[in-house]
């Protein structure tokens, strides 16, 4: 067999070995980490997201205050009457 091919095959064998070991090691570690995350998240109860918080998310850029203001003004007027 071509000595060059032989050498390449050795490289490939090494890559196969190292590669599969690392892939398995990495993903096994990730299993542990995911289990850890789940365990921690299970112990710390998720805080109840206040409903009015949700409205604050999108704006930051945006004309939504105009809408809010329209409603505000309407409510305001309504109360006055």
């Amino acid at each position: 067999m071509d000595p060059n091919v032989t050498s390449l095959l050795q490289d490939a064998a090494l890559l196969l070995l190292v590669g599969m070991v690392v892939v398995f090691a990495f993903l096994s570690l990730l299993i542990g980490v995911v289990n850890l995350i789940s365990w921690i998240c299970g112990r710390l109860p998720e805080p109840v997201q206040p409903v009015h918080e949700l409205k604050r998310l999108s704006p930051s850029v945006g004309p939504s205050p105009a809408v809010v203001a329209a409603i505000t003004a309407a409510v305001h007027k309504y109360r006055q009457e």
Partner: protein
Amino acid sequence: MEKLTILWHSTALANFTPGQLVMMGVGLLLLYLAIVRKFEPLLLLPIGFGAILTNIPLAGFSEPGGLLYYIYLVGIDTGVFPLLIFMGVGALTDFGALIANPRMLLLGAAAQFGIFATLFGAILLNLIPGFEFSLKDASAIAIIGGADGPTAIFLASRLAPELLGAIAVAAYSYMALVPIIQPPIMRALTTPAEREIRMEQLRVVSKREKIIFPLAVLLLTILFLPSATPLVGMFCLGNLMRECGVVERLSKTAQNELINIVTIFLGLAVGSKLSADKFLKLETLGILALGAIAFAIGTATGVLMAKLMNRLSGGKVNPLIGAAGVSAVPMAARVVNKVGLEANPHNFLLMHAMGPNVAGVLGSAVAAGILLALVG
């Protein structure tokens, strides 16, 4: 064995510098602020993520050939990204409240005092060993007081690119902190009676006025402050597309997909400037401190100007709305509304605060133009 050694040397574990670890922590902190505390998440999330990516040893995100390197080169080095964001913000901004009551522009002007006063602070820091801010650096830092993200990024990329990361982070962080920074200052400078003042309802503004407004702003800027035309021009283009009613397709795209795409890239590119050697310096602490001062001063001068206008108008201006002059749209206007409601649960100031709020955007763009012309 050799392959394993190569692999080990190619892991971050073997290559981390302490600075990189700290900066990753900073990146995580920004993600925490964005996700859990909802601090300007649209920008701070990609900035935080970019900060993590740029500090990975061996990955080379910000070196020639790396993803963040290209994004920065194309979008920030050229100034294109902040200008496109500004076009989108223009397309998202309704100037109706300002056109209905144009005197509100004075509040947007007064709040810029925060910018120029901060110049002193930045320069005085040079007295402390370790600080060496040039006038350009000081100007780029002071613009944080403009409370406007794209303006700060644009000016920093022109005047002090090496401080860009810290300046952008400070600008967006303080914009998110507006509900915490502003109320004490607003309460300290106003009396309960002033805070209860109810303002007259705003008149309806015609479509034609809204179309002519951005063109008038552009014209004035061209005549008197050409150095501000990149920022003001793109902002007015976006606003004209919004109001003219004949290019709905373009306006919608500028307000949504285009600004979203550019926001992702802008955030990542800003994050790429949060490398240990550029961020973990005494300067950064100085910038953070100066940013808070700039916001506070701007808020105060805005309120004081509103108090003056209240006197002159015979009690028709609620001084609280002056605080909205720093911009930080629409957060500052909401804060005004909230503090107003505390004083009088029937006093809705939101719409009245939108005028100074958008005036503040113009004001800081004008201030940026002045700094570019005189210092740049």
